[in-house]
């Protein structure tokens, strides 16, 4: 019997939906045999208040599994999230925005007012550029991860999430078992050579290329080369052809899968790892940006003015 599934997106860029598409040929099997999509704004013209607008309250059909992408940034997102929670038995947070706030939660480091001012006005803007208040949903005070607003059942981080893991979650729900997802760090899935801490005393910015002789597997660990690689504090899962994706391109991990433990703190853990290994933590140029993917849950907050 086909599993009824609903998709919904909030403060999302649609990359997660493309990741669903990237399941590839297996998706055909899902869609024809195992999955019955009952609601998916990205694909279907399903109206919230009846196809002719006859309903009074927004509603969606009931579903076994709901996949939601994006964080919660305004009242519309919140209303839709609550609706999804009511109508879906298993609710899956798809992508790092839904699990940890993602890139949009960088706004939390500035605060709503300063953020809007920067976006809607500059010294040279013409009059009439003020932030609209009437016809668009009101923004919330900050960007939230989904589980700050409702209980979530499964977390599937990633920017974008790994299509294989999406397939695993869908299969698991269909089979009525918990999904098997990676629980370790990027470093655990990284094959590069580690020779010990060496003499690195500070991390440097990625302005010159890493070693690029020979295969990636023979390259020295990027952190040991002195680059600010977030592998130790980032959840595994991005591995495409056996290698973490950024490492495959000899680029340091930027932390897009969020913290290893769901309630971990990437900035604190990374700074701790550096400090306890004798690397000067002050050599990290902009440490708050280590929370670039996990700024929800109150992690990123506007700097207090010194008194």
């Amino acid at each position, binding site marked *: 019997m086909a599993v009824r599934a609903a998709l919904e997106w909030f403060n999302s860029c649609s990359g997660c939906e493309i990741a669903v598409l990237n399941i590839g040929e297996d998706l055909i099997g899902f869609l024809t045999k195992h999955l019955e999509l009952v609601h998916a704004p990205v694909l279907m013209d399903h109206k919230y208040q009846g196809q002719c607008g006859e309903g009074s309250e927004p509603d969606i059909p009931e579903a076994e599994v709901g996949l939601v992408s994006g964080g919660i940034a305004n009242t519309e997102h919140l209303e839709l999230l609550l609706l999804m929670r009511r109508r879906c038995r298993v609710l899956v947070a798809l992508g790092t925005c839904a699990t940890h706030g993602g890139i949009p939660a960088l706004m939390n480091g500035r605060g709503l007012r300063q953020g809007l001012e920067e976006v809607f006005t500059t010294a040279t803007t013409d009059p009439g550029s003020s932030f609209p208040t009437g016809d668009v949903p009101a923004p919330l005070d900050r960007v939230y991860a989904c589980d700050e607003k409702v209980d979530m059942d499964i977390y599937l981080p990633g920017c974008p999430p790994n299509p294989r893991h999406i397939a695993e979650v869908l299969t698991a729900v269909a089979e009525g078992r918990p999904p098997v997802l990676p629980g370790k760090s990027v470093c655990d899935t990284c094959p590069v050579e580690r020779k010990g801490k060496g003499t690195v005393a500070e991390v440097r910015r990625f302005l010159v290329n890493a070693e690029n002789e020979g295969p990636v597997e023979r390259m020295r660990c990027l952190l040991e080369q002195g680059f600010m690689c977030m592998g130790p504090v980032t959840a595994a899962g991005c591995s495409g052809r056996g290698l973490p994706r950024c490492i495959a391109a000899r680029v340091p991990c930027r932390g897009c899968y969020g913290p290893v433990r769901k309630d971990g703190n990437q900035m604190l853990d990374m700074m*701790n790892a550096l400090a306890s290994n004798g690397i000067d933590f*002050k050599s990290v140029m902009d440490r*708050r940006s280590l929370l670039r993917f996990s700024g929800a849950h109150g992690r990123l907050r506007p700097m207090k003015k010194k008194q």
Partner: protein
Amino acid sequence: MAFEPKIIAFCCNWCSYAAADLAGTARIQYPHNVRIIRVMCSGMVHPELVLDALSNGADGVMVLGCHLGECHYQDGNHKALARSDMITELLEDFGFEQERYSISWLSSSEPDRLVKAFSEMTERIRKMGPVDAHDATG
């Protein structure tokens, strides 16, 4: 009612906890505001423990270890010290005053030093007032 701070003190098993024990048997008074948590080494106090304590309502956090060079595990307290500067600086990022955290070193035969550290910290926090009670999760 006057403000009575809550202070969490991570004491290492080998020096500072033993000193607290000694303070007890010697009947030396110290402020009741301090709640001691025994850890095996000051070097195992992850910054997250400090931050969690503050986020959950502690008004101050102390880490107490052996004198530098006298760590039971060779260099645990050096690790704690290296982390300490980092914690002090990062506290501001998460909205806490730097003065809410302190680190000090003492041997197991120095209960008076421990009591002094406890008293000074309690006074400092009492002047600062309660921790800005924000909920770290919301």
